[in-house]
């Protein structure tokens, strides 16, 4: 997958089928009702119950609406993806006005994958990965792939066309070390 700046936003090309599957799952991850994800995306804010109830009634409701509109934004951009000629995968354009929404959505999707797959902090830092199941390894790879997109959207990196998938794996591990 490559990424490049255009006049109107960020373009991603040569999106491989596995990466496409991960991207297309982002809107679903944003709206999952799994309690592990809900707990992380709508965390307890106050120590006192009465304060927390009030917070959830006001701020919690507004956040739910925001996340729903963000899901629509991501879904819309994904629906507008085009096929590149000669079987070179898909092409995604993220307009500048959508970058902030995408960054947050990608963060939410990464957090959701982490929670849904019962991942552990040391695995994010590349340690003790021998204890991971195949499903957890796949989830971690997806988390790193989405981090790659975030890194590009943050303006920290561009990706040249024709990067090999092996390069992508290496870069993904690199970004995990920068995970907080």
């Amino acid at each position, binding site marked *: 997958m490559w990424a490049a700046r255009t006049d109107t936003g960020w373009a991603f090309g040569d999106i491989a089928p596995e990466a496409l599957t991960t991207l297309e799952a982002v809107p679903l991850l944003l709206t999952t009702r799994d309690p592990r994800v809900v707990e992380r995306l709508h965390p*307890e*804010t106050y*120590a006192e119950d*009465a304060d927390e109830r*009030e917070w959830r009634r006001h701020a919690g409701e507004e956040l739910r609406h925001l996340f729903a509109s963000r899901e629509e934004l991501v879904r819309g951009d994904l629906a507008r993806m085009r096929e590149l000629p000669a079987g070179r995968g898909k092409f995604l354009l993220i307009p500048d006005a959508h970058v902030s929404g995408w*960054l947050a959505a990608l*963060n939410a999707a*990464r957090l959701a994958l982490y929670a849904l797959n019962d991942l552990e902090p040391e695995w994010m830092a590349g340690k003790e990965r021998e204890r991971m199941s195949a499903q957890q390894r796949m989830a971690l790879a997806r988390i790193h792939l989405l981090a790659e997109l975030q890194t590009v959207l*943050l303006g920290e990196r561009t990706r040249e066309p024709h990067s090999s998938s092996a390069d992508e794996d290496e870069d993904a591990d690199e970004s995990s070390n920068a995970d*907080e």
Partner: protein
Amino acid sequence: MSSRPGGSTETREREKTSLARPWNVVVHDDPVTLMAYVTKVFMQVFGYAKAKAERLMLEVHHQGRSIVWTGGREQAEIYAQQLQAHHLLTTLERVES
């Protein structure tokens, strides 16, 4: 955001007291969120310079939490909501007198 019409005298008194005391906006570490993203959010939400945003981000990373802002409850809630909108793990704590 936190004040509302009506409610018992006790509730109103409690709110009046808590509105008067400063609150800390606290961001907690999580193993997933990118450091560069946290820095960007701090700059965007609070208007902090990059150096200050990075210092706070590193405090979160190394110490597990950082008080990123202190002040009136209403503004603290606005900031907490904005940080949670970006999925930073954020809580509000009353400053102990």
